[in-house]
């Protein structure tokens, strides 16, 4: 069964995700069937959107403090840096996350997994990166949950991330996984990245240094964006 879902590693396909990965059924009628075309030129410098503090509300970066009570589950700190390929920090950039609660249930009408909703957990956060490109969230470790991609399919625990970067062409939506999760071996979505070294880039590290004793464990996950073709050159590059 897993042979159909998890294809053998193939680093020759490159580090990017295989967008028509057959093990992930929803790709079939949705992924463009014709080759992508090359734009002859960009019409404009495609700077990404600029966000300010006005997009943020108090406790947007602390998903454990968005309600009157505390959510159930294992409190964690997730932090890391948003970088370009040269290792330069991407500053003042909006990072948005969303996730299931500790029981593996999303606060979304479509999610019918019979695990309890947590009245004290919405599962959404956002923050801006600082001068060092660093983002930081306090949240609850999300649970695994079943989905109907194939018989007995379970998603490994993950947090969804959305980041912008400096240019429209750097836009990235992805998922962060947790080290040692046995479900990753059976998951077609992470295995759509056919290069095992590239898959590692989606897995956070346990981060003892960032833990808060008697309070929360911590994970670290850096995000590296591709080249921002067409973006206005950085003044501080």
């Amino acid at each position, binding site marked *: 069964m897993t042979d159909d879902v998890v294809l053998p590693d193939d680093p020759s396909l490159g580090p990017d995700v295989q967008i028509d990965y057959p093990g992930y059924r929803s790709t079939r009628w949705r992924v463009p069937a014709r080759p992508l075309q090359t734009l002859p030129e960009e019409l404009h410098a495609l700077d990404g*959107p600029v966000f300010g503090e006005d997009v943020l509300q108090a406790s947007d970066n602390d998903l454990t403090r968005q309600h009157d009570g505390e959510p159930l589950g294992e409190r964690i700190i997730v932090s890391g840096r948003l970088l370009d390929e040269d290792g330069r920090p991407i500053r003042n950039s909006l990072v*948005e996350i969303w996730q299931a609660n500790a029981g593996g249930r999303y606060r979304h009408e479509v999610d019918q997994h019979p695990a309890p909703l947590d009245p004290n957990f919405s599962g959404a956060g956002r923050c801006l990166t600082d001068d060092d490109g660093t983002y930081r969230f306090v949240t609850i470790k999300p649970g695994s949950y079943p989905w109907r991609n194939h018989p007995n399919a379970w998603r490994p625990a993950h947090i969804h991330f959305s980041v912008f970067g400096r240019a429209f062409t750097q836009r990235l939506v992805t998922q962060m996984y947790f080290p040692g999760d046995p479900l990753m071996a059976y998951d077609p979505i992470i295995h759509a990245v056919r290069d095992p070294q590239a898959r590692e880039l989606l897995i956070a590290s346990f981060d003892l240094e960032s833990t808060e004793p008697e309070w929360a464990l911590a994970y670290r996950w850096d995000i590296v964006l591709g080249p921002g073709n067409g973006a206005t050159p950085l003044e501080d590059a």
Partner: protein
Amino acid sequence: MALPRTPSQTVGPYYAIGLCRRDDNVLDPDGVELTGQLLDGQGEPIGDGMVELLDPVARTWGRSGTDREGRFSFRVRPDVEALEVLVFARGLLRHERTRCVLADLHGDGPLVFDIHMQGQNPTVFYEV
């Protein structure tokens, strides 16, 4: 040596929790309505997709989730040549990029820009 890039993963079906919390579909409050349907290769509406627009001249940005009919809507500046478009959905392991040329959208009323992921007359998608 360049750092390896973080790969993309699908936005999944529950993106609205994190990404559609604000009224983000207005690029220009005094602009015109731009609407359309996001459709799959069988002509079925994609009811759990998301479209993002960039007006590259005004440097404004917007985002709209799709409803059960796959419909999205924006308010945009009418006098821009083209809007840059990104499409996200469950089943798309990486977002797709296309371009909305406003002069190609005819008729009175709201501008209509349908997006066909596959099919006989698919939308043209570009390398990012």
